């Protein structure tokens, strides 16, 4: 089915292809769109994880006790696949230690804790709003310096993405404003109020990537946002693609296929087919970084759920504790049953409410028990194939489930387990209430563990074989040496060699005695007893 887009400057229209699979759940978006985006007061403590992106953690450059200003870099990129971290407000760094991340396991990771002083004093920067006269490499450098990562949830460092798209010619630059997942309205609110800024960000991206076409893809139910976007894109070469409402239409690979007709090959990035896709929040952050010289220190986050008095979108500082945001919204603690980070289909439960907002947190849901009912008991698979009908990647979820359950990981890999985007559509429609995504995640981690073990085993086997070869080689050399020595008369040198072996043994026993003496002194003087078994 072809669906023609409604608006375009040049006469060419964007022909959308129908994406396979997908579901149409209730969107639950209206409640958080009733008001405008609200700014939050500055929290007293901000927790900034060093790893808010996909790649290696940033390296802290500020020390505990330092006074920092808003926008100051406090952690630099460790390597090419890392992104720097900036202070969201002025204050003092109180420590660099372990803190819970906002993920389902409450993983502890290194974080910089910042105590704000309330002044919100910004660092002095040179401010150039005129990005047209900057070179692409300058723009790229600014984006990298600002620590911008994919704000849609993936967290891929934007600099890295743009760099790889520089190696291939980019035909399409797509700004993803589809936001198909229920409950999340951050991108829609952003476009409603800052459409011009998003369009400027898109233009900057177009310049940097050198894309031939720039398309903003947005869902057809976001009527206000579409109107604003059309107005903002009036005098630019940006095209708007209006995607029919469906969950998984906004997933990166599915959107690329919908808009451009190209498929991202398995295991490769969109850059390899000439497509560069970025989230709306990323485009806005790029605008802020280039035109307002503000690094990535804040984002729009939807805070919603039926237990909140006033669900809305917030303009939050990165590092704000989630408990602080819930207090702002007026949460009904008696009805609160589940806190979800992300939307209702790909979001994760939050065990620790003191976890901070990071660069990729786009939504928080404070749900009641009626809203998020307890999962019903899992029953046998009846092979109805509802799951295969809704899978956007054309997988066979029932076969993946069967392979995962039997722990036949080779078979699961054959059926394309690693192509699964974990969108949750299959588990949503399953009439037997099978937690399919949990099966796939467990299998994926098990397969990766096995791959690591296999890789390690091969590495150690190679090292062991070399060790054996080296040992044989040395033995052969010694044999040769000794056979040549035997034919020589006993010389001074040989005598010295014997003598040095004796000397070595003596030295070793002296050294052992020294260490034993030192150790016994340590044991008697220190209050903590060391537990070691005595060796003869």
């Amino acid at each position, binding site marked *: 089915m072809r669906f023609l887009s409604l608006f375009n400057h040049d006469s060419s229209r964007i022909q959308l292809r129908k994406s396979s699979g997908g579901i149409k759940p209730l969107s639950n978006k209206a409640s958080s769109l009733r008001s405008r985006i609200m700014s939050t007061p500055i929290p007293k403590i901000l927790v900034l994880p060093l790893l808010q992106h996909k790649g290696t953690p940033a390296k802290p450059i500020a020390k505990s006790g330092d006074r920092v200003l808003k926008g100051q870099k406090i952690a630099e990129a460790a390597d090419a696949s890392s992104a720097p971290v900036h202070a969201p407000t002025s204050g003092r760094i109180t420590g660099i230690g372990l803190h819970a991340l906002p993920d389902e396991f409450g993983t502890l990771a290194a974080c910089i804790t910042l105590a704000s002083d309330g002044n919100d004093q910004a660092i002095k920067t040179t401010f150039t709003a005129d990005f047209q006269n900057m070179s692409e490499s300058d723009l790229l450098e600014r984006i990298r310096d600002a620590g911008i990562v994919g704000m849609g949830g993936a967290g891929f460092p934007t600099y890295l993405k743009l760099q790889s798209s520089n190696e291939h010619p980019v035909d399409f630059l797509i700004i993803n404003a589809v936001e198909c997942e229920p409950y999340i309205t951050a991108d829609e609110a952003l476009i409603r109020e800052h459409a011009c800024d998003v369009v400027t960000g898109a233009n900057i991206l177009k310049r940097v990537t050198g894309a031939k076409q720039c398309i903003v893809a947005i869902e057809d139910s976001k009527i206000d946002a579409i109107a604003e976007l059309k107005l903002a894109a009036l005098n630019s070469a940006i095209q708007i693609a209006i995607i029919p409402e469906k969950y998984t239409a906004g997933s990166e690979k599915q959107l690329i296929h919908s808009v451009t007709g190209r498929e991202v090959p*398995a295991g490769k990035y969109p850059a390899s087919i000439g497509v560069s896709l970025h989230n709306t929040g990323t485009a806005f952050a790029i605008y802020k970084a280039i035109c307002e010289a503000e690094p990535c220190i804040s984002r729009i986050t939807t805070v919603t759920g039926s237990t909140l008095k006033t669900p809305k979108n917030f303009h939050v500082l990165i590092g704000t504790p989630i408990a602080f945001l819930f207090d702002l919204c007026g949460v009904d603690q008696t009805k609160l049953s589940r806190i979800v980070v992300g939307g209702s289909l790909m979001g994760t439960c939050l065990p620790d*409410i003191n976890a901070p907002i990071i660069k990729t947190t786009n939504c928080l849901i404070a749900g009641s028990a009626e809203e998020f009912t307890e999962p019903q008991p899992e*029953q*046998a698979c009846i*092979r109805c194939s509802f799951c295969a009908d809704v899978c956007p990647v054309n997988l066979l979820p029932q076969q993946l489930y069967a392979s995962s359950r039997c722990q036949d990981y080779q078979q699961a890999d054959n059926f394309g387990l690693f192509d699964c985007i974990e969108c949750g559509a299959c588990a949503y429609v399953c009439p037997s209430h099978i937690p399919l995504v949990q099966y796939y995640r467990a299998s994926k981690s098990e397969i990766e563990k096995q791959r690591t073990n296999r890789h390690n085993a091969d590495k150690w086997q190679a090292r062991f074989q070399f060790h054996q070869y080296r040992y044989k080689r040395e033995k052969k050399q010694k044999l040769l040496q000794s056979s040549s020595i035997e034919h020589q008369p006993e010389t001074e040198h040989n005598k010295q060699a014997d003598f040095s072996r004796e000397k070595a043994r003596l030295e070793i026993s002296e050294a052992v005695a020294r260490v034993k003496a030192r150790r016994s002194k340590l044991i008697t003087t220190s209050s903590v007893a060391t537990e070691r078994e005595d060796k003869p």
Partner: protein
Amino acid sequence: MNKVIYCSPQLNGQQSIGKIMLWVMTACIPGVAASTWFFGWGTVLNILVTMIFAVALEALILWLRNKSLRIHLADNSALLTAVIIGIAIPPGSPWWLLFSGICFAIVVAKHAYGGIGQNPFNPAMCGYVLLLLTFPLNMTTWHLPVDTLFDELQFSTLSWTSFMFSLQLCFPALTSDDVQLTEYLDGFAMATPLIEYELAKSSAVLVALKNNTSLFASTSNTGWEIVNFGFLLGGLFLLTKKIISWQIPLSIIMTITVLSLLFYAPGSTAVYGETYLHLFGSATMIGAFFIATDPVSAATTPMGRIIYGIIIGVAIYSIRVWGSYPDSIAIAVLLGNFFAPLIDHFCRPRIYGHSTRSGL
């Protein structure tokens, strides 16, 4: 805050096996209603008695297997099997016939393989074929209150008399020496509607329309065709609700259409009947929409379902025309079930981002 961490997705679509089975049973209602209108209470009684046996047997087996009755009985799968068997077994069959059929279907064809979702063969059809092989005479005898051949109404199909008639056929112990009751056992007995000579006739519905007689009058012989229309209606309803997929019914119907057009031979050899009669003068509609689409035993991939449907269609036509069974749906569906795992193995969809179908 959260004591238990749930894996995404945090919401689900509130679909359940019980609801699906209930919708399928609801979709059977038009066909069963038409059957009651034309042929009496036999089918309804069959269904009710089979349902009671089915639930009792399922409960017993689940108790023996230490499974929770509350969860597993709620999935309505035993009830659906009972409905299908009740429709398939001729009305007027004694209760022990129904009991044997449903017992084999539920205990052996379903639970002996591991319960719901584990059976390789369609349980209802397994029960039906067992009955066909062990009680061939009973299975090919239809007791009708209406004499369709001689256009004589013995008594109205919906009357209390008709109900008593069906009840006595079902539970022969209820017959007594009372003269009035035994009279009712003289209802006409005929083989199941799809018999060879039926295919030589032209469509009763078209004839009725031409003669301007009511389609629903018992004298117009449109009974069996209307029943099929009823099941077609139910099947289309299931399609719109997306409970069954379109590939299996469409490929079965298309295959039978193509074959019947190819081999159509009007004349003395009446088995090569019209396409219309093959589709509506037999049990094709119920087979295509309700029996072959049983999810557990059918093929699951889109392309696989089309091939599965083709195999079943070819089997239905071949056995009906060249074989010796009056109706071939059950055997054809079981034949398809044999091939389903092989079909699933070879007919996999192409995964997004892969150039060829996934490795076999």
